């Protein structure tokens, strides 16, 4: 409750500060992710707010909620999370930027409600540091990202190292294309390497508003952390069984539908 008040106060303070900023704008987005693997389904919703603090720094806050349903439809694993990130442009040379992002995700306890009983798993905390190199040229923005994420949950610890290449068309048209290729080294007792691929298409709905559809696949399962579904996959450190482990142990993928709006504050 006290933490909620603090977040609200921080939000109001930052909103007030943002009002007077000369450039950038407040960005809000809401997204839904869905997946189905062998009759098990995942639904995840997320709301994000991006607040520019100055011309080089922005603050991001987000809330996630997800539910994974088993083959027996009454079997269910659910949790929620909130995250806070600060992104800062460290260096800028013409069309090139070097961006540092520090992010903390605090999950809530994971609850598995299955026929055998009610099982809970300690909330994970994920600290992620990533370095992004961005280049804008000829209608495309390309980037490469180095990422390190540390997961702590109860007595368990895991680490994920990641490298990704990203590109997005930035032509002034209604349609834009994005793709991403990433490789993760996942360390929890053993080290496992997991590639991930993503392709997306976005459409400009109105000035400052876009809708995006993206498909993401991980041929060897998703890593513990470092991806947009880390609030779910972080629970795999506890080996909670079929519902959640499917996303880590075998080829998996999900679809994302996102709506983003940017105000000119």
């Amino acid at each position: 409750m006290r933490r909620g008040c603090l977040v609200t106060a921080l939000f109001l303070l930052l909103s007030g500060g943002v009002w007077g900023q000369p450039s950038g704008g407040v960005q809000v987005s809401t997204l839904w992710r869905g997946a189905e693997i062998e009759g098990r389904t995942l639904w995840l919703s997320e709301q994000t707010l991006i607040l520019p603090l100055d011309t080089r720094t922005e603050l991001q806050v987000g809330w996630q909620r997800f539910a994974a349903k088993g083959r027996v439809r009454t079997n269910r694993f659910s949790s929620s999370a909130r995250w806070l990130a600060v992104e800062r442009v460290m260096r800028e040379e013409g069309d090139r930027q070097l961006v540092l992002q520090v992010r903390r995700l605090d999950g809530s306890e994971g609850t598995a409600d299955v026929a055998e009983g009610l099982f809970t798993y300690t909330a994970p905390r994920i600290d992620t540091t990533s370095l992004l190199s961005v280049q804008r040229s000829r209608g495309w923005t390309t980037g490469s990202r180095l990422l390190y994420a540390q997961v702590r949950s109860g007595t368990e610890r895991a680490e994920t190292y990641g490298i990704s290449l990203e590109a997005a068309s930035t032509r002034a048209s209604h349609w834009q294309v994005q793709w991403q290729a990433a490789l993760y080294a996942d360390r929890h007792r053993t080290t496992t390497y997991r590639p991930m691929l993503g392709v997306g298409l976005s459409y400009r709905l109105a000035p400052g508003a876009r809708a995006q559809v993206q498909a993401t696949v991980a041929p060897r399962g998703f890593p513990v952390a470092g991806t947009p579904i880390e609030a779910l996959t972080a629970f795999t450190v506890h080996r909670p069984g079929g519902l959640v482990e499917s996303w880590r142990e075998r080829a998996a993928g999900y679809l994302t539908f996102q709506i983003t709006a940017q105000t000119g504050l």
Partner: protein
Amino acid sequence: MRILRTLVGALFMVVLVAMWNGCGGGGAAAPPSQYILLQNGKVEVEQGEGRIIIKAGVSQLPGVGFTQDVVIVQLYQRDGFQNPRSDLPSPSDFIQDFRVRRDGTLLDELRLPVGVYTAVAENIHVRQGNKEFRSGLTAFVFEVFKSGGRLHTTLPVAFEAKFPALGSVIEDSYVRFRTDLAAVGGRSSLFLQHRNGTVDMHRQLEPWPPDTNNPSHANVSFDALRGGPTLGDVQRLILKAFKP
């Protein structure tokens, strides 16, 4: 910027080669499973004047073990753990202390009328070889009830638990106990709270042996699911058994 690109390229190649060599795959490996086996619950009773007498010297509290020779256990009226996650028995429900040996054998006789009772033992510590199981609080909520003109209890007459040792995966562990036949059809529950999560299971007391016309006891079995998590320090282990 050129240094960063070189660094990114080099790291990419290293990871690519490592993957090509077939490192890893699949989910996280589980730590080796180790268990503590406990077979220590039993109860011998006599009929008293409107009270059941749980005999000292032979009756044992289930699922406990201590490092001290003599331990004090608290007995309360009513279910002191209605919400097993957060509740503690109310001091106003306290009835008496009684002493048990390190293996849970009662040193004091208990004389109890019909009702629901909560026995609370603290600082359980069982060591078998280099494996150990610890619980900050272990409670057994049981009932004394009248059936067929006699008093019965739902305390175990035989108790067997395969607890995971600290740091072991919970899978393949279980808690099973048998109690008075008159308790068949009653409810039983197990609640475990440890550093990596909680387990909350509810079962019905079934006739034992199963598939016979002449069962001798009521029986319940709580079996862990496949997988994790690993057992962290146990804060609470609460077992309950109620009449039908």
